[in-house]
């Protein structure tokens, strides 16, 4: 029972991170039908920006927690700016082109950001300092859950709820949903589709930056190629929930986190990734539109 609860909380922590990153994939895909392969790298960029902020200004004690909050703000701002720039430079000129051109542009952007991180920061593993946050551990039914885990789970759920409310209950959120359904019709209704797309490239990377910095704080180390790993997992989560579907990405993230945690806890760890990918292919075959995705009629 202890193991079960333990793995459940581990899964929820990682799942929250996956969900935050997955939202960026799903929002961009929903509006542009583009897999933004650079998204994972943007998220890890957030972790590096946050780390720089913490190490250059951070003190111990009470200042630590405040510094962490400022680090999040800095990471979110920088990564959101990078997201907008990416859309302007690499995707906007290709909106009317063959969709594979945009895919390759996204792959190039991913390579650019990943190696940019390596050059600016380090080709080695960068370690997050300890003692930034309280090290309290809570014991529940034989499982020990750290403060950081509770924080990650709480913050990611709050952010997801906020995004859900924003998209479903505000004017601009309605515009985003309209542009996702039919860009031309949305334009005819007076919606500024360019602004909607730009906003998606602010919100997605901003949430992703939080997710990326959580990765750094949770595992206490970041590495420039981590964008691929986490990006891929988050992307699988987005597909699991139904790509293009915002609540789907949240559910997919949490489920994938839980699945991974239990697979690591109860099954072979060297085959863990293979099990995840087999699950992905299985889902694609049985229900390609994911858990919450609607069945899209085939275009003729």
């Amino acid at each position, binding site marked *: 029972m202890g193991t079960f609860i333990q793995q459940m909380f581990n899964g929820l922590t990682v799942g929250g991170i996956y969900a935050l990153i997955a939202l960026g994939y799903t929002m961009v895909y929903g509006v542009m039908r583009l897999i933004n392969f650079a998204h994972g790298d943007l998220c890890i960029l957030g972790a590096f920006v946050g780390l720089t902020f913490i190490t250059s200004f951070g003190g111990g004690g009470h200042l630590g927690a405040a510094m962490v909050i400022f680090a999040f703000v800095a990471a979110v701002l920088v990564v959101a700016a990078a997201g907008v720039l990416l859309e302007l430079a690499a995707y906007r000129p290709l909106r009317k082109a063959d969709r594979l051109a945009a895919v*390759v542009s996204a792959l*190039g952007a*991913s390579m650019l950001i990943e190696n940019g991180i390596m050059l600016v920061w380090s080709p080695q593993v960068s370690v997050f300092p300890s003692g930034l946050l309280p090290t309290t551990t809570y014991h529940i039914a034989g499982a020990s859950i750290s403060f950081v885990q509770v924080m990650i789970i709480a913050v990611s759920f709050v952010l997801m709820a906020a995004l859900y409310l924003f998209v479903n209950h505000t004017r601009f959120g309605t515009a985003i949903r309209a542009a996702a359904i039919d860009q031309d019709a949305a334009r005819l209704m007076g919606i500024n589709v360019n602004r909607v797309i730009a906003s998606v490239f602010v919100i997605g990377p901003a949430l992703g930056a939080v997710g990326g910095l959580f990765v750094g704080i949770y595992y206490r180390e970041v590495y420039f190629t981590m964008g691929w790993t986490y990006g891929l997992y988050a992307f699988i989560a987005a597909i699991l929930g139904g790509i293009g579907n915002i609540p789907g990405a949240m559910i997919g993230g949490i489920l994938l986190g839980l699945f991974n945690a239990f697979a690591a806890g109860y099954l072979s760890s060297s085959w863990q990734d293979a099990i995840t*990918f087999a699950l992905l*292919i299985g889902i694609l075959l049985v229900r390609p539109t994911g858990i919450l995705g609607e069945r899209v009629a085939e275009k003729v």
Partner: protein
Amino acid sequence: MQNLATKYGGALLWIVGLGLPLALNDAWVAIAAMFAIYSVVALSEDIILGRGGMFDMGHAVYFGIGAYVTGILNVNYGWPIFATMPVAMLLAAAVGALLAGPLIRLRGDYLLVASIGFNAIFVLAMQNNLLGLTGGSDGVAGLDIPRLFGFQLASQNSMFWLDWVVLGLVILLMNNLDRSEFGRTLRYLKQDELAATMIGVDPRKAKTLAFALGAAVAGLAGTLFAVQLSTVSPSSFVFTESVTLFAIVIVGGQGSVPGVLLGTALMFVLPEVFRGLAQYRYLVFGFAMILVMVLRPQGLWPRRRARA
């Protein structure tokens, strides 16, 4: 006229290429050999992606299977290199046809994602020493040199010539594909699947065949690759290799032989030339990929539309 120029220009370039070992030192001949090998893989990816229109982002699997078959049969069972070649092609083709079963039921981005998944599973299977044959993370090492009719193709030059001849044959295959019924079927399917079905094309059959053919050619390249490096390890067939192959076809020009060759030269030879700038090269590389796509979304050397 232009048609003739490209046709004979290509043949002429190939003949000039035969003389490369006379002008270059061993290190550069090795790069030229790798160019030939990767060109073959990229052309085989083009059969599935560029001509078949299926977003295959797991092509390194078939390349890897060819290399592993040659490595395992040669090192563990003592088969001569050339005897492993047909087995490498057949097994790769079989796996291609097998994976095509589920893959072609998906379309567009879903196919792309599923093929990434197969690539990841393949690499993990090799790393985890599948059936105790693949040698784990170290792979299979110590391959023999190729021997043909008593000749030993031991020098880098002779291996280059072998690769170059295979490249020439594969280019001929691609040109024939353009003119054959199968090539036209693929082209039609890519442009309008519904219309193609209406005139009696069986999409499942054609797509499965495209996967099998692309995989067989990739498997052939795998044999050459294993011989060139005399070792086979999982890291050569990871998902990023598939991404590079995918990008070569799109950056070069889908369905265009000169385009794919140009793409291969840019993605594999230029990084070697800029070895001195090692740490900056992938940065420049990523930047170049965006730039080419923005400026030439159809690729650097697109297929001519008139004949399509």
